[in-house]
């Protein structure tokens, strides 16, 4: 069976999709850059350029206060990094070496496990650095003093005079530890960056002006200005009881911390910072801290006006997303007064709309309205806009995408975490058939905002933005553990849900109402929840989540894809009913596989190019990993990707299921680009990436023939220069679905009727015959009647050497030449006054009897006047089925006789044949005269086709059967190999065709341009030679085809110099070639298997790694007591606010 997902998987294993979900294969290290960006929450434009070990010294708390105990200040050892626009320091010994994996990096990055600004340190935009001085230290080490633009938003003029003693001056020192050279290099890098950053100071000033801290820390005498917009809470109050939240106390603590350690972009992270966040942020600083810890402030800094620009740019435009947003505006946190007002609703509308424009892949997803509504209580529109972007891109990737794969994946991850940490509860859930995700999905999707009372949900968010998505899991697990006992009693979804509902409703109550200890009594259920989440489930790290995501990713994507496939197939229009379910399924798979593989190949090619460019000019600093750009795309389950097939993809698509769509003469981009690749064993490429690097992947190169182009244009109903799945299904259904010969004949005719006027001109006739030859050049398939031909051949005393397979192809050539001749014979002159006469000209053929056939001169073009009835009958398409069979029956006889005479001609009666043909050729020559424009109509075409048994069979069976939708070409290879023997036709066919035009067998036309096109053009000027030329070219094409099929067997130099090969040699080559072609295929498969083998090795070792780390994780959990011991309640008071 043809399976999309296995292909997809294979293709995926050739890739390193490190970005997006951060789902890198742990053994294929996540790129240094992505770790760096994650740790410091920097935009994807930032790469770690230089790094050095350093010691950070933060001077005594407040220089002006000159504290006694704090004289020495604080010292932190860690790593200092420079990126394009940032200077970052973290105590968590960074592990951004090439060999770092997610798990090793999490060892160093402390609390946030590599997923956030963990540890102590800072993330300074270079433009926020005002001055860097080199200090002379005694031990000849490099020491830098860094002064920042802390408080830059305040009036600069006033500050100038009191610059020195200004409390807000922030100065830190950094002692670099490294070789002199390393230090110098680092300092050079810093200098360069600083110089580049100078221009951004203005932008920085503008960006930080929106931060509340700037207002908060202003000296009292300057507080006249209005505070910046920090959300709807300023107007409509913040949720919760300010007293209960101890908001003022928190604000004081924060004011002190910010005074000592800098604010917003110049903030220094010290242990107190993390503690202050855990106890809950004060209302007015919440928005700023969210954007700082999530890193969205750096996005805003990068493009401060993006929000307003976007709104302006798309103002007045409409979209599906906007309709969906509009539906939900009144239904977002309706209990908060701000969202009962136009002000709040307007803000919500603008942020959601602006985001839907910048991220069209996501657009709008229900639940985003709730999340954004929550954000807007604490931050400005623009801040919320960028924070939403950080959410969708980094914090909860894929949650809101069109397939919601991130949501589904994290549900799977959550389930497996529950299974591991609370096996008893898990078992109970399974037994009572409760589906956990039914309960937990809304928790994750709306970040608990809809599940808990708002004040508590915001506390969760406070931690979530610093520590990352693992927080959602930790809180979820803690909820289940705390309620474990009751949940074990719940026997169905309903009971399960009601236990949790009532738990959430009582989060503010005491966790231990009956305790003697007043301190214990004071602990609320929410505090208990936080403690359980972060203490008991401290083993849940970013690394373990990443690994679980990786494990479950494929099954989740497969589920989504199966659903998508089912839905897509079901929603195909009525045409799809003409194909059966298997065919539709296979078409769907083929369609998306081609698109997906092409996308991956494209990506790899680009990376390869980038790699080559890079390696050609190695630069130490530019370590930007090429994998950074390896955003995984194209997989249906990941959301919107290409669902449009362009012409090249269409060719590849056809080449996968129709042998005529495979190129005879592979243009050799593969060889040009990768000369070394094609010379290996059997000329096959043997490195997996090289397979992907070939422009056509592992498949054969598709042909590029006019017929393909016509088919593409015809299928492209919307004229988009691209096909949808629907287009492809409709297109194929018309060919393959009806099993209706007249329909297919009509289809073929229309394919060549460019202007749709029901007429095909001389050129068109040639194109049609060319197409027939193109389609048949690898042999005919379907139900043909070889016995019939053998019979007639032998009665005519034909040669005994003819084997049925050959004779069919031979006969088909004859049929095509007869087709050309007849078309011209019965064509209508292209004069306006003859238009109405045209249908009548077909009449003779229908009424033709054997005598007339024997003597073609007995009738002539347009000499018959028929009555109106017949005219109508012939013209009306509705009537044609009636007419068809009649003429068809007559012609069947006629054609077999004629065929007989033609086929016998070469061996037996050349002179006789020539006599007949001579008369014909004269007539044909009139028709061929380009000065007499002519055309055929559909009825003529139909009759000409039906006049020939083989042509009839071609349209009835062969052509539809040539599309191997389900089994593809691989499995049909055996069947086709016996047919692919054109060269076997030898001279016989040549003479047959030649004879049809009365040509001399030996006549040779100069080789025209490549392909049949040029040859067929000659027909206009010399009808006599054409047929032979056609055959000659066919044979050449065949030889070439065989040569190309065995590149390993033959030297490439021979490629184009073999035109003069004598036929017998060609014949033997053909046999060999045929066998070799099959063996090449199987060796290809071996290669694929090799890739598989490698990939599975990788998987095995990855699994090993996973097991190891999971083992650690569960050990850690086990120490907390028996897993699933739902009653165990851990008490702690560290987090009381």
């Amino acid at each position: 069976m043809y399976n999309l997902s296995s292909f997809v998987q294979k293709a995926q294993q050739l890739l390193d999709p490190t970005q997006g979900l951060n789902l890198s294969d742990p053994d294929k290290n996540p790129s240094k850059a992505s770790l760096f960006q994650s740790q410091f929450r920097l935009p994807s434009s930032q790469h770690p350029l230089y790094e050095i070990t350093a010691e950070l010294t933060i001077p005594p708390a407040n220089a002006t206060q000159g504290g006694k105990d704090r004289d020495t200040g604080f010292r932190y050892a860690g790593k200092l990094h420079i990126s394009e626009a940032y200077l970052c320091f973290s105590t968590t010994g960074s592990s951004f070496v090439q060999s770092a994996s997610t798990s090793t990096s999490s060892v160093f990055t402390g609390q946030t496990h590599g997923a956030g600004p963990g540890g102590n340190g800072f993330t300074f935009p270079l433009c926020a650095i005002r001055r860097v001085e080199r200090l002379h230290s005694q031990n000849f080490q490099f020491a830098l003093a860094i002064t920042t633009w802390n408080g830059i938003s305040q009036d600069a003029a006033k500050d100038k005079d009191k610059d020195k003693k200004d409390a807000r001056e922030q100065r830190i020192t950094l002692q670099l530890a490294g070789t002199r050279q390393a230090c110098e290099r680092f300092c050079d890098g810093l200098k360069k960056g600083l110089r580049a950053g100078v221009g951004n100071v203005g932008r920085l000033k503008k960006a930080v002006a929106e931060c509340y801290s700037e207002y908060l820390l202003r000296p009292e005498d300057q507080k006249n200005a209005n505070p910046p917009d920090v959300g709807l809470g300023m107007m409509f109050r913040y949720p919760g009881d300010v007293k209960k939240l101890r908001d003022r106390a928190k604000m004081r603590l924060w004011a002190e911390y910010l005074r000592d350690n800098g604010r917003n972009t110049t903030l220094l992270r010290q242990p107190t910072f993390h503690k202050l966040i855990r106890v809950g942020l004060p209302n007015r600083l919440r928005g700023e801290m969210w954007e700082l810890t999530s890193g969205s402030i750096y996005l805003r800094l990068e493009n401060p006006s993006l929000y307003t620009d976007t709104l302006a740019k798309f103002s007045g435009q409409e979209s599906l997303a906007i309709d969906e947003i509009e539906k939900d505006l009144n239904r977002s946190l309706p209990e908060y007064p701000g969202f009962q007002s136009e002000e709040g609703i307007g803000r919500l509308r603008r942020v959601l709309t602006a985001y839907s424009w910048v991220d069209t892949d996501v657009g709008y997803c229900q639940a985003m309205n709730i999340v954004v509504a929550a954000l807007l209580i604490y931050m400005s529109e623009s801040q919320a806009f960028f924070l939403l972007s950080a959410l969708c891109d980094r914090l909860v990737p894929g949650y809101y995408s069109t397939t919601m794969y991130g949501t589904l994946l994290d549900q799977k991850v959550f389930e497996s975490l529950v299974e591991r940490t609370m096996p008893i509860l898990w078992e109970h859930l399974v037994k009572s058939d409760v589906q956990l995700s039914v309960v937990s999905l809304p928790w994750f999707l709306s970040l608990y905002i809809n599940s808990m009372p708002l004040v508590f949900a915001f506390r969760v968010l406070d931690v979530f933005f610093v520590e990352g998505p693992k927080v959602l899991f930790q809180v979820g697990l803690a909820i289940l553990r705390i309620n474990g006992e009751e949940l074990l009693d719940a026997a169905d979804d309903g009971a399960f849900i009601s236990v949790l509902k009532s738990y959430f409703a009582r989060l503010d109550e005491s966790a231990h109402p009956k305790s003697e200890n007043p301190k214990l009594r004071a602990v609320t259920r929410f505090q208990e929840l936080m403690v359980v989440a972060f203490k008991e489930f401290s083993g849940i790290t970013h690394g373990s989540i990443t690994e679980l995501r990786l494990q479950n990713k494929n099954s989740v994507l497969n589920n989504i894809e199966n659903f998508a496939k089912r839905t897509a197939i079901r929603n195909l229009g009525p045409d799809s009913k003409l194909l059966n379910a298997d065919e539709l399924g296979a078409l769907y798979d083929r369609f998306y596989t081609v698109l997906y593989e092409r996308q991956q190949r494209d990506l790899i090619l680009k990376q390869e190019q980038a790699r080559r460019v890079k390696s050609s000019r190695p630069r130490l600093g530019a370590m930007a990993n090429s994998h950074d750009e390896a955003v995984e795309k194209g997989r249906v389950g990941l959301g919107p990707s290409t669902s449009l097939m362009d012409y090249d993809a269409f060719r590849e698509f056809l080449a996968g299921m129709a042998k005529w769509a495979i190129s005879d003469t592979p243009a050799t981009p593969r060889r040009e680009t990768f000369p070394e690749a094609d010379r290996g064993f059997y000329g096959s490429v043997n490195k997996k990436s090289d397979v992907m690097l070939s422009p056509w992947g592992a498949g054969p190169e598709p042909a590029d023939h006019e017929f393909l182009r016509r088919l593409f244009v015809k299928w492209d109903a919307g004229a988009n220069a691209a096909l949808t799945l629907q287009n492809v299904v409709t297109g194929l259904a018309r060919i393959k679905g009806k099993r209706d010969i007249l329909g297919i004949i009509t289809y073929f005719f229309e394919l060549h009727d460019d202007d749709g006027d029901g007429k095909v001109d001389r050129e068109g006739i040639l194109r049609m015959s060319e197409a027939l030859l193109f389609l048949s050049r690898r042999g005919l398939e379907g139900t043909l009647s070889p016995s019939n031909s053998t019979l007639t051949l032998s009665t005519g005393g034909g040669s005994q050497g003819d084997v049925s397979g050959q004779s069919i192809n031979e006969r088909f050539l004859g049929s095509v030449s007869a087709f050309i001749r007849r078309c011209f014979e019965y064509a209508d002159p292209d004069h306006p006054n003859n238009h109405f006469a045209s249908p009548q000209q077909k009449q003779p053929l229908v009424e033709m009897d054997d005598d007339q056939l024997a003597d073609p001169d007995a009738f002539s073009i347009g000499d018959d006047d028929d009555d109106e009835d017949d005219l109508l009958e012939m013209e009306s398409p509705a009537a044609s089925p009636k007419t068809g069979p009649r003429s068809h029956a007559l012609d069947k006889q006629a054609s077999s006789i004629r065929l007989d005479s033609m086929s016998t001609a070469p061996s037996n009666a050349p002179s006789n044949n020539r006599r007949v043909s001579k008369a014909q050729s004269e007539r044909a020559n009139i028709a061929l005269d380009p000065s007499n424009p002519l055309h055929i109509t559909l009825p003529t075409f139909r009759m000409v086709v039906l006049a020939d048994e083989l042509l009839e069979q071609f349209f009835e069976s062969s052509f539809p059967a040539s599309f191997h939708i389900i089994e593809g070409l691989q499995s049909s290879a055996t069947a086709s190999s016996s047919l692919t023997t054109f060269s076997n036709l030898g001279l016989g066919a040549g003479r047959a065709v030649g004879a049809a035009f009365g040509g001399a067998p030996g006549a040779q036309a100069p080789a025209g341009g490549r392909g049949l096109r040029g040859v067929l053009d000659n027909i206009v000027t010399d009808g006599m030679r054409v047929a032979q030329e056609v055959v000659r070219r066919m044979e050449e094409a065949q030889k070439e085809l065989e040569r190309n099929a065995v590149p390993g067997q033959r030297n490439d130099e021979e490629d184009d110099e073999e035109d003069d090969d004598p036929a017998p040699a060609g014949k033997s080559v053909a046999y060999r070639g045929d066998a070799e072609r099959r063996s090449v295929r199987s060796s290809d498969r071996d290669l694929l298997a090799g890739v598989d083998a490698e990939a599975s090795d990788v998987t095995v070792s990855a699994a090993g790694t996973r097991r190891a780390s999971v083992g650690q994780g569960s050990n850690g959990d086990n120490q907390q007591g028996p897993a699933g011991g739902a009653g165990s309640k851990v008490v702690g008071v560290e987090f009381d606010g």
Partner: protein
Amino acid sequence: MADSAGAPRPSSSVKLVLLGEAAVGKSSLVLRFVNNDFQENKEPTIGAAFLTQKCNLPERTIKFEIWDTAGQERFASLAPMYYRNAQAALVVYDLTKPTSLIKAKHWVAELQRQATPGIVIALVGNKLDLTNDSAGSSGEGEGGGDDANDARKVPTEEAQTYAEQEDLLFFETSAKTGYNVTEVFTAIANAIPETSLKTARGPSGASGVNRSEEQRVNLNGPRDPNAKEGCAC
């Protein structure tokens, strides 16, 4: 496995799922059925909502476990999670929105292929109050929209013919006025075959479980003082 042997009427639970385009009124129908209430600004459903309601039939009591799903297109891939094991489905469309009927047909096809075999499906055209033949007048309007101010866009016959073809129950309702709402659920309750009730919740549907289910229903009760009255039948 006798269901609560001594009880006057055997009671069994039926899992019912609501599917349909966003904002056709799925949650409103459930709210009307469960709480006999209607809200003009109903929050969109995130993922799914779960509610229960009993329906008393002469012969037995059916307890509906109602899964109300989110209608936005992208939530569709979550639906299999919710219609898994469902014995009944309410596929809702909006009488004033032709596209919603197309979506409803997609859901019917999906259910027929993927859901529990023999699932009872009811096709429900909601928001009848926005049409002329609204609540009170006969549900079987003769020709659909006759008047200019009639918001009906889907003629009764069109949906009815389709429902007959596919062997679905068919109703036109208004969650706003309550017209025909309980009728839908009663009809579903009647249509559930006796045999499928016995095996309703698989092996875990044992008597002990049933007892605790009963309690849970009461736990749910506070939200919903009218719940015990069941449907009007």
